[in-house]
């Protein structure tokens, strides 16, 4: 079974006037910044890593589909990185 590691990331987000939260860009640990080109879907989906009721944002980043998770209670974003 594939294992994942939870990596918390810094995210710049937008609060649209119609409500909700939209990630704009993601700042990686090494200082690189990745623009979120599009948010394809948003919904409550359990993560593979430990997290209580996160919101999953399926995003297009660098032309590829990536999943960003928001833990609303702690107002914290994370991604899942496959680990060996």
């Amino acid at each position, binding site marked *: 079974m594939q294992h994942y590691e939870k990596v918390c990331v810094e995210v710049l987000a937008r609060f649209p006037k119609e409500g909700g939260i939209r990630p704009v860009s993601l700042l990686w640990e090494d200082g690189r910044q990745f623009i979120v080109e599009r948010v394809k879907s948003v*919904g*409550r*989906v*359990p993560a*593979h*890593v*430990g*997290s*209580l*009721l996160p919101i999953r944002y399926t995003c297009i980043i660098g032309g590829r589909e990536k999943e960003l998770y928001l833990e609303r*209670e702690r107002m914290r974003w994370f991604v899942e990185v496959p680990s060996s």
Partner: protein
Amino acid sequence: MNTDRCILHSDLNNFYASVEMVKNPALREVPIAVTGSIKDRHGIVLAKNMLAKGFGVRTGEVLWQARKKCPALLAVPADFPAYLAMSKAVRAIYARFTDRIEAFGIDECWLDVTASRYLFGDGENIAQTIRETVKRECGVTVSVGVSWNKIFAKLASDMKKPDAVTVVSPENYRETAWKLPAADLLYVGKSTARKLTFLGITTIGELALYDEGALIQELGKWGKVLHEYANGNESSPVREAGDERTVKSIGNSLTCYRDLEEEDEIYMLFLLLADSVAGRLLESGLGRAGTVKISVTDTDLRRYGKQGKTEGPTRNAKELADTAMHLFRTLETKGKPVRALGITVCEFSENEQLDLFGRSEQEEKRDRADKAVAGIREKYGNSAIRRATVMQDEHLSELDIKDGHIRPGGDAK
């Protein structure tokens, strides 16, 4: 028998343990038991996962007993805020299908989907959709029972676990619900089950077919109720979400971090509990309490209880503690040290009891003092003002009266 309604009973499987596994997926690989605080000696198994169940670990056991069966059992301290958050999220899913949701504890709900069938398909369909949605969105599983009444719906949700839907219909209830032990029926406790066994009743079907008159003779009016339940004649409405039930009692209990032997120590704990109960009583606006019940658990885990009237309706902590202590003195506890204590108050009178000569100045003063204390606690926290008696014990005086350590024990469901 009115079979027009469509009722679901949804039960979150191994709830506390399931939430812990969502929080930490590594726990899926090991047998776990969710326990109360071990340091404060709430080391009782509150829930377990399927792996622990396989070793025969049971809810309600003390941790060391469970470890005898399963030495590798991992104890995980309970995280109630997380369970509440999950429970709320799951109820929000139910609310997509109906506004008639009645909670039965943190992990069970009845849903009346009679009218929802026009929108979402029949009861079984709705149950399947709910089951899939809860799993997909929350990562925990539910067992859903479908029937025309609350009693059979609850029985049905217990038949197949985890992550399953079971239908008890007017066509199949004789082959399904009726085959179950009578003790599985809601509200049949140990003592009723024993009485039923004496009558030769072991299954729900036998209960249903038993002569109602004879049951009433044996069990009183309760006999009639159970007979109706067993026959699927139950028509109490599923309460609407947010429709609070009338609170009939307020109670708190506490397992002390050490065993108590001296009377003044016990009184100290009663005061601490009474303070909390009195605070909740004031907050609830239910008025004053006329009856105090105490529960005592000794070091052999034997439980004793007693109830008695207060001198007059009161919400004063000291008066409640005095009544509790008086009751305690009349208990025969076989002289064992005390491990846990509880106070519950009930029989509320809303209006102030007017003495023939009006309330004494002393009473007025005490009431004002109680309100001032409540005010200070609201503004600065529960530990901002404490009783000097309680401060004799450092550990006890550190307990936050309302948060965490003292559990609501006697609230009517």
